[in-house]
């Protein structure tokens, strides 16, 4: 990783110096040991602030999207970041020629406090970047992951009442801080439904019903576009098992329309954003 960090700094220096990039998005060290934070560097002088180590937990894919100018943006991408970029490209949120992607095959990130590999990385199905302009380091063999849907299967096997109690318990703890939305690479709406006060989709009351409305609607909005990057769960201050909901949608979509991997490329239409004559219509 130290090598990757050196190569990254070297390439960043060259790319910023020769004007290929207006700025580059990566990570820098945080205030505490093992802590990192996303970093945007615009000048060569800042290159040495760039780091790459086993604590670079943040997904970078969403950072370039706010910039609607014509600036050329460098982004360090691992599997999850790269799929997030593809999703943004597919959704028309940025143009590919404005991006320069420095791909890094990822060995998984660790929790700074426990030193253990993060849950989201243990469940990762795409360690190698699926799109990049240059690759720093060698591609990795994708290691087998445990059944991603094991938890979904377990919950599905419960009775309706048990399931309701389970989710009522989960969402009774939600504080609607909306961190999961802010971090989510699928959430690129200009104005989120929860903020459209005039329309009244989301009430302001602190209650289980409003929490559930928020959680369930967000689940459907991310839907099959979920990259399974696990950021929502990582940032949730209440530690809610949000990926269980996302994976339920993914599992259903797989069962109804066949396997679909969000962000694997920037062109494959998702099963829910167009219609086909042989689509399942069991509800009709």
């Amino acid at each position, binding site marked *: 990783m130290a090598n990757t960090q050196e190569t990254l700094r070297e390439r960043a220096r060259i790319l910023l110096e020769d004007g290929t990039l207006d700025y580059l998005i990566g990570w820098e060290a945080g205030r505490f040991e093992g802590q990192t934070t996303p970093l945007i560097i615009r000048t060569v002088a800042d290159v040495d602030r760039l780091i790459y180590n086993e604590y670079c937990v943040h997904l970078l894919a969403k950072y370039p999207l706010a910039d*609607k100018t014509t600036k050329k943006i460098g982004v360090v991408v691992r599997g999850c970041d790269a799929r997030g970029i593809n999703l943004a490209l597919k959704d*028309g949120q940025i143009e590919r020629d404005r991006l320069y992607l420095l791909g890094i095959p990822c060995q998984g990130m660790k929790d700074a406090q426990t030193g253990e590999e993060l849950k989201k990385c243990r469940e990762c199905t795409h360690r190698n970047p699926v799109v990049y302009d240059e690759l720093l380091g060698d591609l990795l063999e994708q290691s087998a992951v445990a059944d991603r849907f094991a938890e979904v299967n377990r919950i599905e096997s419960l009775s309706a009442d048990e399931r309701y109690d389970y989710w009522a318990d989960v969402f009774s703890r939600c504080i609607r801080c909306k961190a999961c939305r802010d971090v989510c690479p699928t959430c*690129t*709406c*200009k104005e989120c439904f929860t903020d*459209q006060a005039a*329309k009244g*989709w989301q009430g302001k009351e602190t209650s289980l019903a409003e929490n559930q409305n928020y959680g369930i609607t967000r689940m459907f909005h991310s839907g099959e576009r979920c990259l399974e990057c696990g950021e929502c769960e990582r940032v949730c201050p209440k530690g809610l098992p949000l990926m269980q909901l996302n994976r339920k949608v993914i599992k259903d979509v797989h069962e109804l329309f066949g396997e679909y991997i969000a962000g694997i490329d920037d062109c494959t239409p998702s099963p829910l954003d167009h219609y086909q004559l042989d689509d399942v219509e069991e509800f009709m």
Partner: protein
Amino acid sequence: MSRTGVFVCHCGTNIAATVDVDKVAEAAKDFPGVVFVEQNKYMCSEPGQQAVKQAIEEHGLDRIVIASCSPRMHELTFRKMLTDTSVNPYMLEIANIREQCSWVHKDKGEGTDKAIDLARMAAAKVDRNTPLYTSEIPLTKRALVIGAGIAGIQAALDIADAGYPVTLVEKEPSIGGRMIMLDKTFPTMDCSACICSPKMNEAGAHPNIELRTVSEVEEVTGYIGNFTVTIRQKAKYIDYDKCTGCGLCEVKCPSKVTSEFDRGLTQRRAVYKPFPQAVPSKPVIDATNCRKFTEDRCGVCQKICTVDAIDFEEQDKLVKQEFGAVVVATGYDLIDWGKLYGEYGGGAYPDVIDALTFERLVNASGPTEGHIVRPSDGKEPKSCVMIKCVGSRDPHKGKAYCSRACCMYGAKHAHQFLEKIEGSECYVFYMDVRTPGKGYDEFYMKTLEDGATYIRGRVAKIYPENGHYVCVGEDTLSGKIVKVNADLVVLDTAMVPQESAGEIGRLFGVSRDQDGWLNEAHPKLRPVETNTAGVYLAGTAQGPKDIPDSVAQASAAASKVIGLFNHKALESNPMISFVNEVNCRGCGDCVGVCPYGAITLETVERRENSVKVMRDIANINSGLCQGCGACTSACYSSALDLKGFTNEQILQEVDALCL
């Protein structure tokens, strides 16, 4: 503050018997925004409508709720009524307290509670209605008729005679369809060719009809008044501008193929006209059987053609045309009985034939010049068994429906058989004899007088024995098993939709029933319309029919087209989608889900945070949008909304019910 008037309809006793209308009217007085409530026995009647108009004037109403039947029934009536008043026709909501309430409830208390809820929701919704206005959209006054059987020809002629141009598309080399294959037509026994071919000629020569044979519809875009249709004009390998139809090529062609038109009783050449009276009266080359194409030799037709009309290099052409209306007349096929009825020999017995083959046998212009002979040995049969309902009225093996024309053509065939062959015997196995139609039952009685023996029952088995066939069945009237020896067996098989009907249905968005027949918009009141505006049905594409019914339906479809074309322009539907640009993030998900191709992404320049940026924003084509609302539910940002059914209106309704 809105000034809503609520009008509660009794619909005679339709509503009043199950809903306490007084209670509904009383409750409506307390709905927010409601300033006036009235009841009427029939809101839709002239006095009912007058009462609304009067109330608008006297009480200054600006919104109307009518609690009555389904909006499908009378929403349009009440909108029209409002055009004469100060209230915009779209400031109206219908609470359906009949179909969704009184008709489905028995308990008056429950029915009344529900009616109050429905009326309250309508009042809540109308509170957020905004005036909407229609606009004019242009109309292409050219019709497309798909399928040139008797229904298609009749529809094309009627439209053309009214002065509008028609394109008549037929997949076969000649127009005429099934009717031109037939010998005589029941019940008057006039020769089919004598009444069909003049119509074919008229269609072929009509200045307003453009004939496209060997052609199929490939792609359709657009909407009523403005369809753009791509037609694949398949290669005929013959230049019709040069060809004189002399027929020399046909005589010299060495490749012989089974004739489809003669149902396999004769052979035709690879360059051929399906029958002498074909329209257009010019041949085509069947490339799959022509030696020039299969073996790259021969080409004798090209050498012999005096006008150099043969062009082996010809390619399929794609023609794009604009149409205002479409008549679908794709016709029928016969069920593949061989696969279903192993007990009838499964097609292996040469003298067990279907009724259409019998038509060719008995036809004066057919391969035997009307002499009925056995296909196997050419001998005249002395006895004939006709079996009705083969594949129809047989849900276990074939279709559950009655094929409608068989009882009559079966009687005709029996009559013809007995008339043409002296001393012959004819047995008809039937389930029921159905002869509703002018002169139909008289015809059937005449066949009985001719000496046809009708046996009520199905044939269970046919097997060959000593040069004839033994038909074993039960006579259900006497309860006895009967065995009938026959030289010839004719199966009256079920009509099924043409295979192409599925594709046509898909292209035009016309649904099909479980058997594949194209669905009309309403089985009784809109029998030739479909649920796609501007697309009409004629003939057996919609279901089994005989010739008189097909022709009647074709003329009905034509009158709908003519009625449409008599308008100067079309009125647009104002209840369509619209985009809130501020919220649109330009993801384009709406583009993919729109079934009408009405949404495109457009790049626009905007100032955001004092910076000029280029953004993609959804753009709705108001002519193409049908207001289905698919985009509004696909839009994560709720940047898309539907006029007349805005999110706000619907949430308002939900709140009215739930809070």
